[in-house]
């Protein structure tokens, strides 16, 4: 793949499908954690050049919880899970019984959001890993709770050095009582995209 070129349609399809499967598993985990039946539904799945990511996510100073991990192995890249403020508050209320006050997370809330994000991320990575039959090893996740652009700029900078495009998958997790939105932001190195295409048998 040359610089500036978008991902191949097959890889995009595979990443979207893995998103679907991963989000399905994540919904099952969330059902158990939140104690109600949660259905998921993908509202948007797009690939955009890295520079366009903030715009695509609505950008600006909306507050989000961002959980970020990188991964290595035969596929290398990074993945970021974003929960908008309302969703982060819902998760915190249900799981810790506490409200997020003054945009500041307590240690417990921070660690809990990190773990929920990590569960969702790992389901996504696991779906990809099964699809192309390779091992993906994620690093321990890190968390930020701040304005969306501030939360995504480090991953974009770090991975922008090697990747050109990002896959954005927006998901709604809907239960009878609570609803949570989650955004997966996936960046795959160009060589890993090639490897993925090869493994999917399309190169």
């Amino acid at each position, binding site marked *: 793949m040359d*610089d*500036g070129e978008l991902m191949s349609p097959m890889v995009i399809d595979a990443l979207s499908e893995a998103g679907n499967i991963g989000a399905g598993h994540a919904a099952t985990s969330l059902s158990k954690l939140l104690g109600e039946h949660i259905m998921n539904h993908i509202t948007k799945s797009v690939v955009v050049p890295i*520079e366009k990511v*903030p*715009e695509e996510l609505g*950008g*600006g*100073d909306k*507050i989000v919880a*961002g959980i*970020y991990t990188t991964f290595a192995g035969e596929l290398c890249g990074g993945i970021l899970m974003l929960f908008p403020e309302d969703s982060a508050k819902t998760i915190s209320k249900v799981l810790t019984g506490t409200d997020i006050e*003054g*945009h*500041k997370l307590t240690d417990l809330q921070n660690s809990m959001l990190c773990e929920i994000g990590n569960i969702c991320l790992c389901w996504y990575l696991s779906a990809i890993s099964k699809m192309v039959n390779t091992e993906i090893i994620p*690093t*321990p996740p*890190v*968390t*930020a709770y*701040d*304005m*969306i*652009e*501030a*939360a*995504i*700029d*480090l991953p*974009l*900078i*770090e991975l*922008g*050095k*090697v990747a*050109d495009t990002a896959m954005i998958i927006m998901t709604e997790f809907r239960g009878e009582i609570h609803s949570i939105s989650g955004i997966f932001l996936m960046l795959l190195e160009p060589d890993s995209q090639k490897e993925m295409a090869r493994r999917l048998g399309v190169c």
Partner: protein
Amino acid sequence: MASVYLVGIGQMCVAHSPARLVCLGLGSCVAIALWDKSSKIGGMAHVMLPNEMCAPKRLIANPAGKFGTTAVKGLVREMKEEGANVYTMVAKIAGGANMFKDVSSSMKDIGLKNADAVKCSLEEGRIKVVGEDVGGSQGRTVDLDTSTGRLHIKTIHGMTKYI
């Protein structure tokens, strides 16, 4: 009512007074705010990386405000074209935070490296830095008022100040 220009990640913008230049949600990125008091022309760049060394070709092709090293030169050139005087120009910088606790050490420093690169370039351009608010672990929104040269900084944790 002064116009408000949003400066997105990797972009830069120059405006005459009355106008405001705004960067929303700076994390590891650094905002350079240049202001010339004689012409009341302001410029702002939203810097992503210290320099072009580690960037892919695609970004270098259109550097604009992406790199600390090129953003200062680019801003000064554009401001001069608009009629600003480089000798009465001052700079303020903000941003360069480390948003993720416990992140690996190579990434932890991106914010500070950005800030250092910007400061070096300003020194080379002989532009005095009259205010700065860099580092820390919180996102910042900055707002330059081109009629006064004041830079307003705020975080979601209630910190608000002018430099």
